[in-house]
């Protein structure tokens, strides 16, 4: 936790220096499927500061996932600018983007996206392998992460032997592995019942309280209300941006 607060203060300092962790200006995305062009995002401006927790809401097909994928460097924008910690991301090579995904972004998906053949431990270990962490350091790190999401006992279980909520906890541990600048979650509770979904949301709030920057897409208004900031997207535009205290 000493380490956690260290990161915390560092992130708060950065907040003053830069515009924010994430700074989007006129970001747009056009999917060109050959016959039709779909304008999924139409010039989005958004700034997210360090330590913020943002719930992203909006009707189906409004462009939430598209925005999330751009922020997570899984995809590249058609036009506009994206600064991640002051660094321009658009125009980077595939290799450079892979490196950013590994070190600076922790992604959590609705369908968990765990590898079914390997254990919970090995799933959490994957980003560390890609990041080049030596084997002996990895073990300790993975144990620590699994303990944080309350799954130490299940580390040797395969994803198929876990419940939905447990799988999502493994995914969260995996997202935290490289200690990223931002945590992105695309409908993390979408495949869970209310109880498990609430637990996951509690976990996010806990992480936010520890100083993490978190963006969560959700359809559930009750869950969205628990986030201190709520951004609504409609038809590729941000239509509402509310901060609560």
């Amino acid at each position, binding site marked *: 936790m000493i380490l956690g607060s260290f990161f915390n203060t560092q992130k708060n300092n950065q907040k003053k220096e830069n515009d924010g962790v994430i700074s989007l200006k006129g970001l747009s995305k056009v999917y060109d499927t050959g016959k039709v062009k779909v304008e999924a995002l139409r010039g989005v401006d958004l700034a997210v500061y360090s330590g913020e927790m943002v719930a992203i809401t909006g009707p189906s097909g409004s462009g939430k996932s598209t925005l999330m*994928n751009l922020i*997570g460097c*899984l*995809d590249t924008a058609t036009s506009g600018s994206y600064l991640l910690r002051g660094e321009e991301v658009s125009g980077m090579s*595939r*290799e450079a983007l*892979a*490196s*950013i*995904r*590994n*070190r600076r972004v922790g*992604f959590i*998906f609705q369908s968990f*996206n*765990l*590898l079914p*053949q390997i254990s919970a431990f090995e799933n959490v270990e*994957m*980003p560390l*392998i*890609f*990041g080049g962490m030596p084997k002996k350091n990895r073990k300790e790190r993975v144990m620590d992460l699994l303990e944080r999401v309350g799954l130490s006992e299940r580390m040797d279980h395969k994803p198929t032997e876990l419940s939905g909520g447990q799988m999502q906890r493994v995914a969260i541990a*995996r997202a935290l592995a*490289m200690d990223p600048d931002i945590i992105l979650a695309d409908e993390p509770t979408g495949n869970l019942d209310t109880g498990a979904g609430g637990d996951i949301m509690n976990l996010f709030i806990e992480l936010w309280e520890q100083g993490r920057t978190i963006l969560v897409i959700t359809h559930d208004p009750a869950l969205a209300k628990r986030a201190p900031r709520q951004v609504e997207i409609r038809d590729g535009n941000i239509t509402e941006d509310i901060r609560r205290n």
Partner: protein
Amino acid sequence: MLSIIRQLIRDTKSQKLRTFLTLFGMIWGTTAVSLLLAFGEGFHQQLAKESAGIGNGVVIGWPSRTSMPYDGLNKGRYILVDDEDIGLIRKKALGLSYISSEYQTQYKLHYKTKILAVGVTGIEPEYGEIRNLIPQEGGRFINHLDLQMKRRVLFMGDELAEQVFGNVSPVGQTINLHGSPFLVVGVMKKKQQNSNYNGSDKGKVFIPATTLKMMTGQKFVSNLVFAADNVRDTGALIKDVRHIMAARHRFSPDDEEAIGFWDTSENAKFINTLMLAFRIFLGGIGCLTMVVGGIGISNIMSVVVEERTREIGIKLALGAKPGSIMVQFLFETLALSIAGGIIGIIITFLICMTFPALNLSDTVGDPRLSPISAAATAAVLGLISFISGYFPARTAANLDPVIAMKM
């Protein structure tokens, strides 16, 4: 590295039949290429041995009849060559290394209770050099003194020696030839000889030309045997010899039948070219087989990439480098084909090792896998598997993580 190997095992398990077929294709291809190269090499060496058997680049000339009128003389005239002619050629022909007259007859050979009819060849000492008649240890070939003194000495083929003497050492023994006692001075070292005229050297008896002439009263040679300094100049040497003989015996220098010439180096050259074409042809077939194996590998890897699209998408999303995904798949392809290649080379080796037991060595030679052949096979194998692995690997590396994860 370890995880890559584990992944490979997992992939091959899920694709058992395909892996087996592909591996089989690669084994087949490698075996085909390397075995063909090995046989080609063995055959070539056999050929070299044989041409050394009759002598390297030997020319055999046999006096015959003119085939065209010349200088007011009729065609169909017999040309008779004697020792003086041989001497003239020895003095005048350009690029000649050795020449020897050769007289032939058939005699009865007596030794103790054995009686055999043998081909007897009267020769000069040079004959041994030209025709590659090397004495076994303890013996010697006919020498100049034998020739001068018309000695009754003989040099005999190894097979005949065994037939006559069995276990007794022949050198120093006396045998009867046409009623005259002859001293055995040498036995020929065993050699490969597939081409011959008037029988193989291993069953013949060689005596000084002068001795034979004295016994039979022959004046004219049966054959002239000679060789060029440089095998490549054999053709020119033959022309020169024909000119010298034409001037002396008054036949047309263009008359190719007055004295027939058999250029054995011509034979070897022809067979060499044929062999080369043969090897290229067989090598090509082998390479094609490998290409088919390569297509199989490419196919299996494409299926693996397709099956693992989601996994690749997840790995890319977690920050795996596209380059390392590419390396992983390339490695899997290479491992698969190298495994096939190694098995193929081992099979070839085993065949090379067991082949001599089939007793076909005298006709086709023993297959031999030289390092160069092995390296050539490996190079072709490596190239083909790299190409066949490259495209599926690139497909994997270029996957869009968002789309791939939805698979």
